[in-house]
């Protein structure tokens, strides 16, 4: 106690704190006063968890995503800390709006609290700024594309838009400079401003006090401590419990790392900005700035002028029916727009299920593409052929984008925020656009008949193993999707590298390719639509596949390697009385009935056999390993 007195004598801190805590609340403490302090609590929680995240997060393109994944997956408590920050952000936005709506409905912005309202409105903008800048930092696809769209919208502001967009991005495009800028704004600039403004807000609050409803005026005054403080603390604890549960039950999201070339990713902002995203759809073309700039600007002007326009002094809820109705409408509109933006089907973009493809139309689309009547393949790759500027469309149909959406996309990609792809609306007839859309929807979903005009089936080509190899290696025929040939391709089906070893007649292979089901192999797709020349070439190539015969066993070399200690088996093991005592005696290992595969797997990874002492010899060249195994297998025989 003496110490406290000493400190207070010198600083006056204790008296100041006591003074602050014992502030009188006219009309007494109320649960409905908790929202302001709840916002403050949310801010403190964001600040604390934000500082902890900054212990590990690095704002660079090479590490931003990796460091967030490290926090989420490798650090104890990392998922929880980021979860608090992630959910805390959403709660902070909601609480700010609740606090503001209450102030509005109560008419608490009026004289003498105009300055508080102005500071509060500024705080709202900064909180939204925090939400916007924080969204980019994990650098996943959602972050990248959300920010891409968000900054593009700012770019539509007349006169200054381009400058604002470039200033935020640190140039024309999103890149390393955008990340460091957003980081600095999110971590230093806005938090600094927030702290100053919150202090100002609190000082003004101290000066003006709570807005007592007329009905409470005759009730006794109570002190802030402990009567109101206990309610504030209880509500904050409740908030904390809810945010914690969300952080544990539904951890913060981290999608795929940002991929600027993946233009098929559907950009979506954070949920509290979704209404704006949805609103934009009602203002196409040059009207867009009405929604992106006009409406927010009007909202800010209304907010700021409100206390100067509304000079009424009525202090009852009954006199605030208009305000309540307006708040209700805004809430309804916000919920409605957010809900609409969340509709699973999307506004005609994604069909509910697989799109029913009109095959004849798709066929015409395919012919337009492969005859290069339309230059899709200059940028896109389809089934192995084409450019790499745009995304590979080989399986595009699996995205279930509706044909109507695709038609509109092909006609005018800029309308769908794709500034790179050229517009085809002017050069193609509507039915041609439709055919292309049908073809795009068919890719990876429907197999279309090969074209007559295809250069592959031209009669000038003769069946040959070499042509078969080209068909497979150039991926014109999809064998390597499921099979492996000499190390190329995907495992799934059998490895074909040694297919020729069984000496099958080529004609039988052709029959097999046409209809594998007939050979009781229902998994493999039928290739009967391929031209005969291709089928024969494939068969000729397949029967020619033979791996080099395995070399003769070489136990002498293995023995030499062990005895010369080039391979240090004898450091631990004993063979015929020679060697170490740490491992087992190997003198009879060859007679224990193990096969070659066992030795190979054991030597490569002893741990898999419960042996954690022996070092793995996974990096030995195959020949060396084989020689050692050859030698070991002779032991004891």
């Amino acid at each position: 106690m003496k110490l406290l007195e000493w400190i207070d004598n010198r600083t006056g801190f204790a008296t100041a704190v006591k003074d602050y805590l014992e502030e009188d609340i006219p009309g007494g403490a109320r649960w409905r006063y908790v929202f302001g302090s709840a916002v403050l609590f949310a801010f403190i929680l964001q600040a604390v968890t934000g500082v902890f995240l900054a212990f590990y997060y690095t704002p660079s393109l090479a590490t931003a995503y990796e460091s967030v994944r490290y926090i989420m997956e490798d650090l104890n408590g990392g998922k929880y800390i980021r979860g608090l920050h992630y959910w805390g952000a959403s709660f902070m936005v909601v609480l700010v709006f609740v606090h503001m709506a209450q102030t509005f409905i109560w008419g608490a912005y009026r004289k003498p609290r105009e300055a508080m309202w102005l500071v509060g409105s500024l705080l709202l903008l900064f909180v939204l700024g925090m939400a916007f800048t924080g969204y980019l930092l994990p650098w996943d696809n959602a972050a990248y594309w959300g920010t891409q769209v968000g900054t593009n919208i700012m770019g539509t502001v007349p006169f200054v838009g381009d400058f604002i967009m470039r200033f935020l991005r640190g140039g024309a495009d999103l890149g390393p400079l955008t990340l460091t800028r957003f980081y600095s704004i999110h971590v230093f600039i806005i938090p600094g401003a927030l702290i100053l403004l919150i202090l100002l807000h609190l000082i003004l609050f101290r000066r003006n006090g709570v807005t007592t409803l007329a009905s409470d005026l005759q009730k006794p005054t109570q002190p802030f401590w402990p009567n109101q403080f206990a309610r504030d603390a209880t509500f904050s604890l409740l908030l904390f419990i809810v945010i914690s549960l969300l952080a544990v039950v539904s951890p913060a999201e981290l999608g795929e790392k940002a991929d600027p070339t993946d233009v098929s990713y559907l950009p979506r902002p954070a949920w509290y900005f979704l209404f704006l995203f949805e609103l934009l759809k009602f203002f196409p073309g040059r009207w867009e700035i009405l929604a992106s700039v006009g409406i927010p600007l009007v909202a800010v002007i209304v907010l700021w002028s409100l206390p100067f326009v509304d000079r009424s002094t009525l202090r009852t809820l009954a006199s605030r029916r208009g305000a309540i109705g307006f708040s209700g409408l805004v809430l309804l509109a916000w919920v409605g727009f957010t809900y609409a933006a969340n509709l699973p089907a999307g506004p005609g973009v994604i069909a509910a299920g697989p799109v029913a493809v009109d095959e004849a139309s798709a066929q015409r689309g395919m012919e337009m593409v492969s005859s290069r009547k339309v230059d899709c393949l200059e940028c896109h790759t389809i089934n192995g052929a084409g450019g790499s500027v745009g995304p590979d469309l080989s399986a595009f149909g699996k995205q279930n984008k509706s044909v109507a959406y695709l038609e509109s996309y092909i006609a005018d990609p800029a309308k769908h925020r794709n500034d790179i792809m050229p517009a085809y609306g002017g050069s193609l007839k509507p039915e041609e656009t439709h055919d292309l859309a049908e073809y795009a929807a068919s890719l990876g979903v429907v197999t279309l008949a090969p074209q007559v005009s295809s250069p592959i089936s031209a009669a000038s080509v003769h069946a040959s193993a070499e042509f078969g190899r080209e068909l497979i290696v150039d991926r014109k025929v999809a064998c390597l999707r499921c099979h492996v040939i000499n190390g190329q391709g995907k495992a799934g089906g059998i490895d074909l590298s040694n297919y020729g070893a069984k000496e099958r007649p080529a004609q039988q292979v052709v029959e097999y390719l046409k209809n594998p089901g007939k050979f009781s192999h229902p998994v493999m797709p039928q290739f009967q639509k391929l031209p005969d020349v291709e089928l024969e070439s494939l068969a000729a190539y397949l029967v020619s596949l033979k791996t080099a015969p395995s070399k003769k066993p070489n136990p002498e070399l293995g023995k030499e390697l062990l005895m010369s200690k080039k391979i240090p088996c004898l450091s631990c093991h004993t063979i015929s009385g020679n060697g170490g005592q740490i491992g087992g005696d190997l003198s009879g290992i060859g007679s224990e009935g193990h096969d070659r595969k066992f030795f190979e797997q054991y030597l490569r990874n002893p741990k898999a056999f419960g042996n954690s002492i022996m070092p793995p010899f996974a990096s030995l060249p195959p020949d060396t390993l084989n020689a050692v195994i050859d030698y070991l297998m002779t032991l004891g025989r």
Partner: protein
Amino acid sequence: MADSPHPHSTEGPAGPVSPIESASPGRHGMTRRRALGAITIVSGAVIAIVVGIQSLRYLISPIFGVPGKKRWQTVGSVAGMKPGEVRKLSFVMDQSAAYMTEKVNRYVWVINDAPEGSSKLDLVVYSPICPHAGCYYNYNEGKNQFHCPCHQSSFAVEGVVIGGPAPRPLDRLPYMVDDQGSLSVEWKVFQAGEPKQILISY
């Protein structure tokens, strides 16, 4: 909420003055004050303890354990090393730390410990890091010794300390040689200044 007798009353900055209920020194008032104070402090404490414990776990999470990945590094060729020969073999390895993997330059000292006249290899591979304070030591060809420039520790080619403050012999690294004479080493770093080897990273 009772109906107010003055539904249209106004409120100035000072507000109307009412009797202060809890300022009255009644016993009931005091216990209520205490209970409310306790609720506040307990709420704050619960939040502080939960966040505190999780943050502490989070902050100390990476500081223990052995960073890096244990794996064989191909170092270079030891083909044709004569008995007693000392070679410095440099190599590039992937060093993993937290969420980053970088290429770093490393080297090891390799000694052929086979007796004079033998054509076989009997290798010893040393970590290049002095076990005293973690400096990189040099090989003195004239004396056939290793010598650390930082605090003057000297080591015989067998690794034993023959002078200076080093608390333990040079650290040997596990190795393999394939039939082409290519040396692979398991890179390990041990705590400097300890009489025993304590592994701190790969």
